[in-house]
């Protein structure tokens, strides 16, 4: 049983870190503006998975007190990371929407999405 949890720990943390790293790699090296924004959103997904995984409790239930399914508070997973992630997802969506509208505006001016061709300013 212990081993089971260990494997799950490495797998979930590992894939969350992998998502963060893949997203960062995409955002830092890719040339297309849409790819950059995509990388950012993948990185955000990784962080959200990480936060939820940190709040998980083995054998815990969702933090909802429902009738006929009485369970005590110390058998519940941590509700705070869930509330934080809820906020973070919505904020992330707002940032993505603004980023994409900036991408459209840049395309309107430059007729290209390649970041090495949009270089009126120093990068």
């Amino acid at each position, binding site marked *: 049983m212990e081993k089971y949890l260990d494997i799950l720990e490495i797998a979930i943390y590992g894939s969350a870190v992998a998502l963060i790293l893949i997203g960062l790699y995409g955002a830092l090296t890719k*040339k*297309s503006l849409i790819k950059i924004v*995509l990388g950012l959103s993948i990185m955000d997904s990784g962080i959200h998975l990480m936060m939820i995984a940190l709040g998980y409790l083995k054998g815990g239930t969702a933090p909802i007190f429902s009738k006929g399914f009485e369970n005590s508070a110390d058998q519940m997973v941590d509700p705070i990371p869930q509330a934080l992630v*809820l906020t973070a*997802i919505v904020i992330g*969506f707002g940032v993505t929407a603004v980023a994409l509208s900036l991408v459209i505006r840049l395309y309107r001016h430059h007729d290209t999405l390649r970041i090495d*061709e949009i270089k009126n300013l120093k990068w």
Partner: protein
Amino acid sequence: MIFLITVLLILLLMVGAAIYAIVQKDLLFAVIASGVISLILSILFLILQAPDVALTEAAIGVALTTIIFIITIRNTVRYEDERNKKKKQKNVKKLAK
């Protein structure tokens, strides 16, 4: 045991989709791959006992984020290396004449 294997497979699929989304040159496929990431993420949130977050991720990550990416691609270019859509179209028209 079956549960563990399923979770591992799902995680593998998710990381694979992430790599695919970054490597793929066709932005439309890349965006759909990122939608797949969100879908798997919402299943994982459900497994990790976070139904509220799963609902939000399913609605925002899968539907809305994907669609605004697709609309942006529709309004701009579809391929990562595509340099200039309008110029290219002009050239094609010239050749046709």
